[in-house]
């Protein structure tokens, strides 16, 4: 209990609360501007959190992303442009509701069910993470090896529509992680005699490039002119929400649960959670014919799902150091920078920090109601700011932020290359999330593989001997072999 009290003390300080409030505003703003994503918001925050103690640094990321995923719904309803990819699944639905004169319902449902879904995800995180950490304390390199493999498998088979391209993305990520001296033999790999490369490719500039610079390049190529759907002032967005809650409790629960689960799977985050929930909502709805005509049911379910996914993604990130989505991939980088190395020992050695993160999570969800209400009020003013004015400024932030991590221009070079790579990958249909997973987990994979190998002493069956390792391994093999099994069965 002491740790919980300490955690409250860590969070309820004027400095931390100020950071939370500012990141809330920042997250709402970034989320509401189409073309600026929640992941980009996180990547741009990192250079600033670099200079903060661990708790406010994590608080800034948690708050900003929660707000951004909600406020992505605002331009969906008003401009038919999702503010973040996580809102794309129900953009048409929200826009059609607005067209029907029900902008309040579209925006209100987005807000209220985002909050409820978010709280669900956080509660699961609070219950599941410490319990999993207890189990994970007994893990050896075998279990970690299979966990990483399972993460890769999820990213390829579950997160993407095209497993072949997902596989290429993952391998490219692993290739990037190979660069440098950090390997079992301590040999320089792909350093080309360059002193900067011996330290490996720096993660944060890479992320800034892949998630922010690539987005700026995309904006530069396609300059779209948005048109506002409604010009009248909004009424009370909370009106009728109680009735919706009574009408769709099952949808809320299903969306929240699926969102948390998808979030917890490595490589799949809020955007995939929203797509899957929307499809599920339509599939099980009593009125599926109303979907796609401005029907609020899908918004309830997938709006809850994308916010629930945020909490879910932190479960594997905190317990195993395996990111559940791109946002936590960046957050893990921040945790390492702050000497808060993720893993089960974090729950034993620094429980107050973990509890502080939980408190921040709840606080962020609760703050979303008033802040989100305010954001809806000023939405039309925010959406009038031309993105063309913001993009060059964001580029300058990216440059300076990438430079600031090591005070070296090498970071800017990495950022640019990653930006161009991310741009073409997206364009040619290669998902970026598996690449990030490969970069983050490559070193971990190699390390655990080699220590397992030394323990196994040539006997590969040892990889399956321990019960949990055996189960995880069998699960991996099953997913890999499943397409072949299905093909055989069809014949």
């Amino acid at each position, binding site marked *: 209990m002491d740790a919980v009290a300490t955690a409250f003390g860590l969070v309820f300080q004027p400095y931390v609360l100020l950071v939370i409030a500012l990141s809330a505003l920042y997250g709402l703003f970034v989320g509401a501007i189409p073309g600026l994503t929640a992941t980009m918001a996180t990547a741009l925050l990192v250079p600033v959190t670099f200079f903060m103690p661990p708790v406010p640094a994590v608080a800034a990321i948690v708050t900003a992303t929660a707000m951004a995923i909600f406020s992505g719904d605002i331009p969906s309803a008003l401009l038919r442009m999702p503010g973040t990819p996580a809102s794309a699944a129900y953009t048409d639905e929200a826009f059609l509701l607005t067209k029907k004169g029900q902008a309040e319902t579209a925006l209100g449902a987005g807000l209220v069910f985002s909050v409820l879904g978010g709280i669900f995800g956080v509660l699961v995180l609070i219950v599941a993470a410490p319990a999993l950490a207890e189990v994970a304390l007994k893990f050896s390199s075998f279990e970690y090896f299979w966990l990483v493999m399972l993460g890769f498998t999820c990213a390829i088979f579950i997160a993407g529509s095209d497993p072949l391209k997902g596989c290429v993305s993952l391998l490219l990520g692993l290739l990037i992680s190979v660069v440098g001296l950090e390997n079992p033999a301590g040999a320089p790999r792909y350093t080309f005699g360059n002193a900067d490369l011996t330290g490996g490719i720096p993660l944060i500039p890479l992320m800034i490039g892949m998630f922010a610079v690539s987005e700026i390049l995309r904006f*530069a190529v396609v300059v779209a002119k948005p048109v506002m759907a409604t010009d009248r002032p909004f009424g009370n967005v909370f009106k009728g929400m109680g009735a919706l809650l009574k009408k769709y409790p099952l949808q809320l629960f299903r969306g929240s649960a699926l969102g948390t689960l998808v979030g917890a799977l490595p490589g799949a985050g809020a955007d995939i959670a929203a797509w899957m929930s929307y499809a599920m909502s339509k599939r099980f709805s009593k009125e599926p014919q109303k979907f796609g005509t401005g029907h609020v049911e899908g918004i309830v379910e997938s709006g809850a799902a994308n916010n629930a996914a945020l909490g879910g993604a932190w479960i594997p990130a905190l317990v195993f150091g395996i990111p559940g989505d791109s946002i936590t991939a960046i957050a893990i980088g921040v945790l390492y920078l702050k000497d808060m190395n993720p893993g089960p020992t974090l729950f034993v050695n620094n429980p107050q920090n973990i509890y502080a993160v939980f408190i921040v999570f709840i606080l962020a969800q609760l703050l979303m109601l008033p802040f989100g209400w305010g954001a809806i009020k000023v939405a039309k003013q925010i959406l009038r700011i031309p993105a063309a004015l913001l993009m060059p400024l964001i580029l300058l932030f990216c440059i*300076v932020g990438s430079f600031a991590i090591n005070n070296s221009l090498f970071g800017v070079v990495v950022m640019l290359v990653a930006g161009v790579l991310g741009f073409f990958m997206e364009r040619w249909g290669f998902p970026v999330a598996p690449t990030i997973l490969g970069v983050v987990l490559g070193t971990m994979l190699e390390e655990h593989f*080699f220590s397992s190998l030394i323990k196994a002493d040539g006997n590969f069956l040892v990889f399956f001997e321990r019960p949990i390792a055996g189960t995880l391994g069998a699960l991996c093999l099953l997913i890999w072999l499943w397409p072949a099994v299905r093909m055989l069965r069809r014949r």
Partner: protein
Amino acid sequence: MRRTDAWVGLGLAVLAGAVLWSARAFPNVPGQKLGAAFLPTLVGAGLLLCGIGLIVRSLRGRAYAGHEALAAGSEHFGSSLVVIGAVLAYIFLSERVGFLLIAPLCLLAGFVAFRIGWRRALLWAVGGTVLVHVAFYKLLRVPLPWGVITPFY
């Protein structure tokens, strides 16, 4: 999409070849049969297979549809080249010229490429530079270079 897939597959296969060839020189862990070459070899082999897979699939005409379904005429590649050029200019010139001179030029190039009027662009370029300078140099103490204006600082 089909033709792009085939070319990307070819590019990946070439990359895989380079990775595999270079991995042969990496040393083993003392006392083990494997070493630094293991992961690169695995990645190289995987990339080679995927590259071939992409080529075969696109030649057979079974490509998946990509995200981009835009008409070719509605895209402006010029602006994206300006963005890349601005970053390159920063990389090569910032230490010599200094942040306070190169940053407004990068911003100005971006604004103009995105069709913001000159007067507004100039105002935002100066304002944006001051904002970033105050935030990163003054508050966060990032040593942004002074370049040619060092003597006046």
